């Protein structure tokens, strides 16, 4: 049964190694001054990669039933909905309607 996946030692160790490298990287990029919107994007991109690695290999989503992956992605999707629709208000509070 594929859901009883037993990770090999090299896998676990290299996953942890990759996470440590990415942690170093995310601190290191702050030493070079990337201009305003891109520094956030880089930081979040690295965090997403790290989170994906944890979810896939530590939490076994890579080997697990695909339904669990869908469930997890669903939470991200609805969080995105929450953020983006709220921003539709807060970013345009003083703007009025574009057509007027």
């Amino acid at each position, binding site marked *: *049964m594929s*859901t*009883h996946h*037993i*990770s090999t*030692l090299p896998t*676990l*160790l290299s*996953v*942890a190694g990759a*996470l*440590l490298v990415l*942690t170093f990287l*995310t*601190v290191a990029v*702050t030493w070079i*001054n990337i201009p*305003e919107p891109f*520094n956030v994007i880089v*930081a*979040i991109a*690295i*965090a997403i990669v*790290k*989170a994906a690695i*944890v*979810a896939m290999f*530590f*939490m076994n989503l890579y080997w*697990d*039933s695909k*339904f*669990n992956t869908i*469930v*997890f992605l*669903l*939470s*991200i999707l*609805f*969080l995105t909905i*929450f*953020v983006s629709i*709220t*921003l539709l208000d*807060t*970013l345009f509070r003083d703007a009025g309607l574009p057509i007027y």
Partner: protein
Amino acid sequence: MGNQSAAAGRKSHLQHHFVNEDQQFESSKMGMWIFLVTEVLMFGGLFVAYIIYRAWHPDLFYMAAQELDVALGATNTVVLIASSLTIALAIRAVQLDKIKAAINYLSATLLLAGTFLVIKYFEYMDKFGKGIYPGQAYSYEGIHHEMAVNFFSIYYMMTGLHGIHVLVGMALIGWMIIKAKKGAVHSGYYTPVENTGLFWHLVDIIWIFLFPLLYLID
């Protein structure tokens, strides 16, 4: 599952309404994943507050983040990654019936989680010493921004809720150590350890986002 014969003779954990242990295991894990969804959305509310206020006051977030100690934050990130590794190793050990090793790995995870909280404690005390409190008690004058308290309110809410989750995770890990010592988990039945692992990894994932968002604003 391949080693059902190995599990023979052990006390059966199969509840009456499941057909077999696989069905029970997969149900528990699915339930845990759905629970993790609720965790993501609960933290999500705080992330939304963070995003809204950062979009409104980017200068405040830049100024206030200078007060946080990147070195301590990075150390805590490393500590949590290490704890994620040890709990993954613990699950592997249980799956291979190496119960002693599993107990050691779980204890190491507990220790790392404790280290995280101790570092967090010193960070909080440092802030409190300067008068950086959440909410009305805030009295620090080093940040020249009228909204300065809002950043730290969000900071304390996010790290505080995360800290509570670390505590809950520690309680769960402690419980797993007791279970392992009693011989209640083994290769034929390791559902609780697996689910504790999932919870702990989620705590790690949330911190992976908190670290750059709170500490690394340049």
